[in-house]
């Protein structure tokens, strides 16, 4: 009886999620679309300056106004989507892969390997993460790569911990023992038989992390690390626009800031939606 | 309204409890007289705890209660917000639960918890209060109550927690103790010790008790009256001796027959034909009708009549002779 009631509504929910729950996924698709085609769709060249039109407020010609060099803020905000998503995606991929490897190794081997890797991950978590990111980015030198690596490292513990837990839990299952007896190499067992079970978990975590990673990277570039000015990037654009607050040119920092916020919002909400879609039992 | 101690302690008439559209407790009427221990027996899910909670005023907000009458010594219990009623709970009506460790707060010393209740109802403070706390703990046979009052529930055994719970319940000398399966989850020796303690205290203090259990043997041993519930309906109420010698309801009969062959508790019965009806679906008027060997047409369509004297009452169209 319990089984029937538990599975029935769940199945229905997977196939017919209410629109409000699917909305974040729709927005996510739009965001990715903007990331891929943004620079093509932009009405102006995002780097083209035009001093005669500098700092003009939003108008029909320039929806988001122009910045101090007369560049179109709308085009720059749109073009920046690609940069920010790319930085986030690369960083998250690195943490996903490295974190999974560390977690799988620790969970599978256990013992001293587990302790050492666990300590390493704990040490990362002992820092306020953004502070650590600043430290890593500084230590690696001021470049885009450093920002990506820093963002990847501070996100790594989430994956490492989740994967370690799941692998360790399945390590002693009967079928794993059987597979080992059948001389299937552990790497294969983990890769093809344990990790696929974690896809839903990792996908959800990645979406949530994307928002976090973008925020982290934009924060780093806001303080002047990584991406350099002529390039359009939300964090830098907000930093650039900050100086014009005191003369009332609000649009220069507001629109990229809103874009950044929306992107993070979409990723975190989509992560939640994804969780419900892939794991209907969780509330 | 002030309590009128000449009346029955609890009077319930046509008590209904539903969750949404599910009628879980169906039209039960029950009196708890003074100075007697009444056992409420029934399978898991038959609604025993709900009845207890409605008397103690702790029904979950999701439950909807309707009754023609639900009173304690003449005080209406349906209006749980009224100040008169709030003064009764803990003072005149106390309840102990199945899982005493969960029922007590894990972050407050047990003595403090008892002190909170005594301070609330007896207005004691300072040294008097601590003396009363120690006294309450001593009364339930806790050795070295001075030291034990400083313990947290996490540091006590299950049986000890239940003793603390009983001390809490008896701290203000209430007239009615509701014991909702107070020994489930305890080992056999502790079980007997706890029930002996409860019954001794009740007799000594001339209290009444509603003892909820699914164990018929326990009920016979400790209770004066036994009230049998099935799927939210009361099917039979009689002195405990009479239930065993001259049960009239087919359900009680089935319970006894099954328990005689196997063990003494309902929990380990060979299943009675069928199972508790699904309360969400269409229900026969007598909810036992679909499982009953003596069922007739009218059992499905009309509420069974109540017959018999106070000491042997049965709700059945076709009772056993």
């Amino acid at each position, binding site marked *: 009886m319990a089984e029937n009631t538990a599975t029935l509504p769940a199945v229905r929910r997977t196939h017919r999620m209410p629109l409000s729950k699917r909305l974040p996924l729709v927005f996510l698709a739009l965001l990715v679309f903007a990331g891929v085609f943004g620079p093509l769709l932009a009405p102006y060249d995002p780097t083209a300056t035009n001093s005669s039109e500098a700092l003009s407020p939003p108008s029909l010609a320039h929806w988001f106004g122009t910045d101090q060099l007369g560049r179109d803020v709308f085009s720059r905000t749109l073009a920046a989507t690609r940069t920010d998503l790319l930085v986030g995606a690369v960083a998250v991929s690195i943490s996903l892969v490295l974190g999974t490897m560390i977690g799988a190794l620790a969970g599978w081997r256990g013992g001293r390997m587990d302790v050492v890797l666990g300590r390493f991950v*704990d040490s990362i978590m002992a820092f306020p993460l953004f502070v650590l990111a600043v430290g890593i980015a500084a230590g690696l030198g001021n470049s885009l790569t450093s920002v990506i690596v820093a963002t990847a490292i501070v996100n790594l513990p989430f994956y490492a911990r989740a994967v370690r837990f799941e692998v360790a839990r399945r390590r002693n299952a009967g079928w794993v023992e059987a597979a080992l007896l059948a001389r299937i190499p552990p790497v294969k067992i983990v890769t093809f038989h344990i990790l696929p079970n974690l896809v839903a978990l990792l996908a959800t975590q990645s979406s949530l992390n994307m928002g976090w990673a973008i925020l982290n990277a934009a924060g780093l570039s806001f303080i002047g690390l990584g991406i350099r000015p002529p390039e359009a990037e939300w964090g830098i654009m907000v930093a650039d626009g900050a100086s014009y607050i005191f003369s009332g040119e609000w649009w220069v920092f507001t629109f990229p800031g809103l874009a950044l916020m929306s992107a993070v919002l979409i990723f975190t909400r989509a992560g939640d939606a994804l969780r419900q879609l892939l794991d209907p039992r969780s509330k | 309204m002030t309590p009128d101690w000449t009346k029955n302690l609890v009077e319930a008439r046509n008590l209904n409890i539903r969750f949404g559209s599910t009628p879980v407790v169906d039209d039960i009427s029950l009196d708890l007289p003074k100075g007697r221990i009444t056992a409420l027996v029934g399978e898991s899910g038959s609604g025993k705890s709900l009845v207890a909670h409605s008397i103690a005023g702790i029904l979950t907000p999701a439950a909807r209660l309707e009754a023609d009458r639900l009173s304690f010594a003449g005080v209406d219990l349906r209006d749980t917000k009224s100040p008169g009623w709030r003064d009764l709970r803990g003072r005149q009506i106390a309840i102990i639960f199945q899982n005493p460790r969960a029922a007590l707060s894990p972050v407050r010393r047990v003595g403090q918890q008892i002190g909170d209740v005594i301070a609330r109802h007896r207005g004691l403070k300072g040294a008097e209060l601590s003396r009363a706390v120690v006294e309450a703990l001593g009364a339930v046979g806790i050795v070295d109550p001075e030291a034990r009052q400083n313990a947290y529930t996490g540091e006590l055994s299950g049986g000890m927690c239940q003793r603390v719970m009983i001390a809490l319940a008896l701290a203000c000398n209430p007239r009615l103790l509701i014991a909702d399966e107070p020994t489930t989850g305890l080992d056999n020796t502790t079980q007997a010790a706890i029930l002996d303690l409860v019954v001794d205290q009740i007799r000594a203090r001339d209290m009444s008790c509603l003892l909820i259990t699914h164990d018929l043997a326990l009920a016979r041993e400790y209770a004066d009256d036994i009230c049998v519930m099935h799927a939210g309906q009361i099917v039979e109420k009689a002195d405990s001796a009479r239930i065993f010698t001259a049960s009239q309801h087919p359900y009680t009969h089935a319970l006894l027959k099954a328990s005689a062959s196997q063990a003494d508790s309902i929990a380990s019965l060979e299943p009675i034909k069928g199972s508790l009806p699904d309360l969400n679906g269409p229900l026969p008027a007598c909810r036992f009708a679909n499982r009953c060997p003596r069922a007739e047409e009218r059992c499905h369509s009309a509420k069974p009549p109540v017959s018999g004297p106070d000491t042997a009452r049965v709700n059945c169209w076709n009772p056993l002779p």
Partner: protein
Amino acid sequence: MRLPRRLLSAVPSLIGIVILTFVLTRLLPGDPAAYFAGPAATPESIEEVRVQLGLDKSIFAQFVDYISALSRLDLGRSLSSGQTVVDDLTARLPATLELTVSALLLAAILGIALGFGAALRPGRWPDRLCDAVTVFGQAMPTFFLGLLLVYVFYYKLEWAPAPMGRLEIFYSSPTEVTGFWTIDTLLEGDIGAFQGVIRQLILPVITLALFGLGPIASMTRTSLLQVLGGDSVRTARAFGLSSRKVLWTYAFLPAAVPILNTIGMVLSFLLGANVLVEKVFGWPGVGAYAIEALLVSDFAPVQGFVLLMAVTYVVVNLCIDLLAAAIDPRARTDG
């Protein structure tokens, strides 16, 4: 009795922090000596720096040097300020702490209040508000929120003073006793300056607090709902205790530990977000100091800053553990 063991439990974290911060300096691509010597260095001066920094020794010897320097509280010297990093950080830490502590307090008070409202009226407006604050707090970049507040309250409405430091120039800054200017101005009895300090604090504190509010509110809600639905609250109600007593003693206390832990986690967010907020509000704290140094490739201050923040975080979490153990006996056994 239990205290020393708690203190010991922080040791692995501290060791990890020390090792990681050491590794940070070795991450530098290319020649660290050249990096530390600055962009205008000659080969001789680079060599000089190498020897001076001990970079000619083995990695292990360098680590030993690093540890012994740390134990002497020597974090090196800032190239840009010429001072020792320890002096620089000590001078600026109070500004950062005053900001962070105020924000953490505000976030905790508002968050707990909001979570309470949400738990007591699930599904109603406080619950919705709690949800909204959590979702937006998570997504809102602190530096953007800070700038928005500056634009609205300083430029548009002119309610707030210019976002430039701890006190407007026409007040004299107080002599530092505690380093918290709110307290120091009061100690001097300078009410005008006290109000000035408060006015400067309001916007950055709100910025940080809004950022930290969400997790605290939603944890308060979850934890409280769980206890409220549990047996012990039911018992307290069944025994006629007043709703105030039930709510605070029987519901909030057992719910407190997860909330405290969340506050600890939020502190970690705030220490990070501080870097950004200090930049936005021209706040003369350690975060702003680290960024300045960072941008001119002055590495010792950054390293010192990272170390300081990590140690602060560990120490505060230790205090939170102790507080949790004092409140809740269940928090005493594990760990």
